[in-house]
């Protein structure tokens, strides 16, 4: 009889450990990254990116026809081509990227333009309070308040790790807000709209996710 308890204990122990794992800290993922050999890690993203989309496919925007429109509560609506965006003052930063589902990528090298510079030509009206970023991946959008969007580490990124963004990462332009979970960092941005209220709910926020998605202080984490 005792022989049987060993197998039973192993079975229940595994199930219990796995269920406990659901609620354990996110550092468990870092642990997983240490167990997986380095060679495998380049293919298997234990500490790396996942590509999440909400639509039927990854948007593939044509750099020739791409336009970024700035509208809403601004003095002059502006339309940028990709070349226009690239001619704005360039900013670079290294920051971590945290997904709300638990994975993170450390030390991502971003290049692009600060939102203050993107908004400069259009000019915000005094009543403007937030910026709503609209993705080419319909109906994805999300909103940052002006203080959030103008943070020193917030970027409209055009490059990642020394190369233009890949299609999966939001080519040609995406928001990078490293202090919030990744769903605030809208990919494939085609429109930035200044808004006078902070009432718009982004795509995930309509499913109950926090508007202010501070890492470690929102969504129950």
């Amino acid at each position, binding site marked *: 009889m005792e022989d*049987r308890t060993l197998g039973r204990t192993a079975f229940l122990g*595994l199930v219990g450990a*796995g*269920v406990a*794992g659901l609620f354990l800290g996110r550092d468990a993922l870092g642990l997983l990254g240490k167990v997986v050999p380095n060679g495998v890690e380049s293919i298997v993203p234990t500490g790396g990116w996942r590509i999440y989309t909400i639509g039927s496919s990854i948007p593939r925007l044509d750099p020739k026809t791409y336009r970024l429109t700035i509208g809403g509560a601004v003095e002059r609506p502006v339309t940028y081509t990709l070349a226009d965006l690239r001619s704005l003052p360039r900013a670079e930063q290294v920051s971590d990227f945290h997904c709300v*589902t638990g994975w993170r990528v450390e030390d991502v090298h971003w290049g692009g333009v600060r939102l203050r510079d993107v908004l400069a030509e259009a000019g915000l009206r005094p009543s403007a309070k937030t910026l709503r970023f609209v993705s080419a991946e319909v109906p994805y959008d999300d909103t940052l308040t002006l203080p959030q969007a103008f943070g020193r580490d917030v970027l409209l990124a055009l490059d990642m790790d020394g190369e233009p963004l890949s299609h999966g990462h939001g080519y040609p332009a995406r928001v990078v807000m490293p202090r919030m979970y990744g769903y605030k960092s809208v990919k494939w941005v085609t429109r930035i709209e200044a808004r006078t209220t902070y009432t718009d709910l982004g795509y995930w926020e309509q*499913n109950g996710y926090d508007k202010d998605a501070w890492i470690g202080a929102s969504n129950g984490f």
Partner: protein
Amino acid sequence: MIRRFGRTERALHWVHATGFFAMLATGLVLYLPALSELVARRNVVKNVHIFSAVAWALAIVLVVALGDRRRLAADWREIETLDRDDRSWLLGRPAPQGRFNAGQKVNAIVTAAFAILFAISGFFLWLGERDHRYLFDGTGTVHDALTLISVGLVSGHLYLALIHPQTRHALRGMTLGEVREDWAREHHPKWLEERRRL
């Protein structure tokens, strides 16, 4: 020839195998960035993954409900029982084995536990996307870790079942249900002994 696996046991094995590989293939497309970017219709892949999961779970319930439950219960009793010989075998010392050897028992225990954990973590991945209250800290990590370990286990399982000359005859037991008596005597002598006693 002697009978090793009945229809219920084989159905359970192949239902699980089919579900596993369907979900592995679609899961890798969702998980690996290179594949994600390559495959255009992500939501189709995601739906197939989720549909496979539901079909897999239903099929397992059906096999158990309609199949030979007494036999499955006896199998599980046998699998859970790791006797002195099994423990020696696991420590690398040769010891006579029953119908399941100790490695097969451990594999079956891990597979059963993982099946439950895949189902739970997968369900909460699905639900957490719809309602953030069910988005737990480690759901994705658990689902990923299960996948990584399972791929390792299945690779070993496939090697032993398809390639390794001494063990691959076992595949016949899982397809046609029967194995050669001389092979069984060599690999599972305690099983033959029990059969003779019955």
